[in-house]
């Protein structure tokens, strides 16, 4: 008998055994890689779903009043130089508090770090009785657009009270892009909600528009150089 015949079964079983070991190694490696990849995908998707759920809940909880308040806030801190609104508000406050504006100057500065943002400096000298001047100063603090008292020099004379006030008012461009859909949404903090409530009570500017019923008719002067009678 040849030696192959003698060891034939050992040879074939050995081949099968070795083949199965190699097959198990490759199979194990394949499934481990596959399962790891699927587990990672599932983990990523779960995180994404949790984040989207948080966004959905946060956005659903926004009260409709916020939309109305956002319009007022856009006036409190406008997107552009608001010097006309500020001077108009200062004049309205002076009329309301019965003080006389002796002088009013304005000056605007852009923010070097953000050329689109900046501040307006308004200098105003007013005269009136002491309680009126005190109330006028207090009313400035709650004006929209927001103004900050920079310096106040207030002096009472025997006849009247004069206050020299330097105000700062600010503007800043509106945000131009929304955060990515994969970013978490932060709702307003209690501090921000309190600030929003305070700001929404600020005195909004009242701008008058032209009313045709009260406007005068245009009269054509046929003899503009004639002597005035």
């Amino acid at each position, binding site marked *: *008998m040849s030696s192959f*015949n*003698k*060891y034939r*079964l*050992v040879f074939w*079983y*050995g081949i*099968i*055994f070795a083949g*199965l070991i190699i097959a*198990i190694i490759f*199979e*194990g490696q394949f*499934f481990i890689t596959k*399962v790891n990849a*699927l587990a990672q995908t*599932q983990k990523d*998707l*779960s995180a994404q*779903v949790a984040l*989207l759920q948080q*966004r*959905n809940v*946060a*956005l659903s909880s*926004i009260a409709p009043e*916020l*939309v109305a308040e*956002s319009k007022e*806030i856009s006036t*409190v801190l406008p997107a552009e130089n608001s010097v006309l609104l500020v001077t108009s508000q200062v004049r309205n406050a002076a009329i309301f508090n019965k003080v006389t504006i002796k002088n009013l100057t304005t000056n605007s500065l852009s923010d070097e770090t953000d050329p689109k943002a900046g501040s307006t400096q308004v200098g105003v000298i007013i005269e009136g009785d*002491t309680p009126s001047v005190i109330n006028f*100063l*207090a009313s400035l*603090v709650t004006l929209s657009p*927001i103004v*900050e*008292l*920079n*310096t*106040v*020099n*207030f002096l*009472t004379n025997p006849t009247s009270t004069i*206050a020299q006030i330097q105000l*700062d008012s600010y503007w*800043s461009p509106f*945000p131009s892009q*929304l*955060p990515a*859909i994969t970013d978490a*949404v*932060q709702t*307003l903090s209690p*501090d*921000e909600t309190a*600030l*929003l409530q305070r*700001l929404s009570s600020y005195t909004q500017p009242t701008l008058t528009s032209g009313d045709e019923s009260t406007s005068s008719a245009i009269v054509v002067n046929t003899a503009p150089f004639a002597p005035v009678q």
Partner: protein
Amino acid sequence: MPELNFLPQDQIQDKKVQAVSGKLKVLAAVLGVLCVTIGIAGTAFTIYKGTAISELEKQESELKTQVLAQESSEQTLVFLRDRLSKIQVIEAKNSNNGDYLAEKSTLATFSPIVNLKQLNLTATDSNFSLIVPDSITLVDVLQKMKTKQFESGFIDTISYNAGLGYEVKFKIK
């Protein structure tokens, strides 16, 4: 009884070889079963995970639609947060508004015969002077100035004028 083997002599296998081949046969069978088991378990797990992933993908897609439908709410929120954070920065830079309101509310608690003579408010400090006509009112004023709002302040000077009364100058840092 003796064991009889009628096979030709060259086909009779060695007993040791038979034992080794028997063991290899068993091991090969075990490995075969293991290989099949791993294959079935791996495939089942892959199908299970794939189903879970497709469920999550469906959920993600629905949520994205819902979130995108609320874009206007998000715009409002982003806008408000932007404005409020900037206003907070502005207010943190300058505390004069709050200081003035605090001074005003304290002044309002004084007797009407106390008059504010002078008030200077700057970014770093503020000072004001009051005209107090008599010493009883002066004691009352000094008591009221011990409030929390003025804990960083102090009396700078107190002077007396026979015609006006006391003039008290306060400084607040």
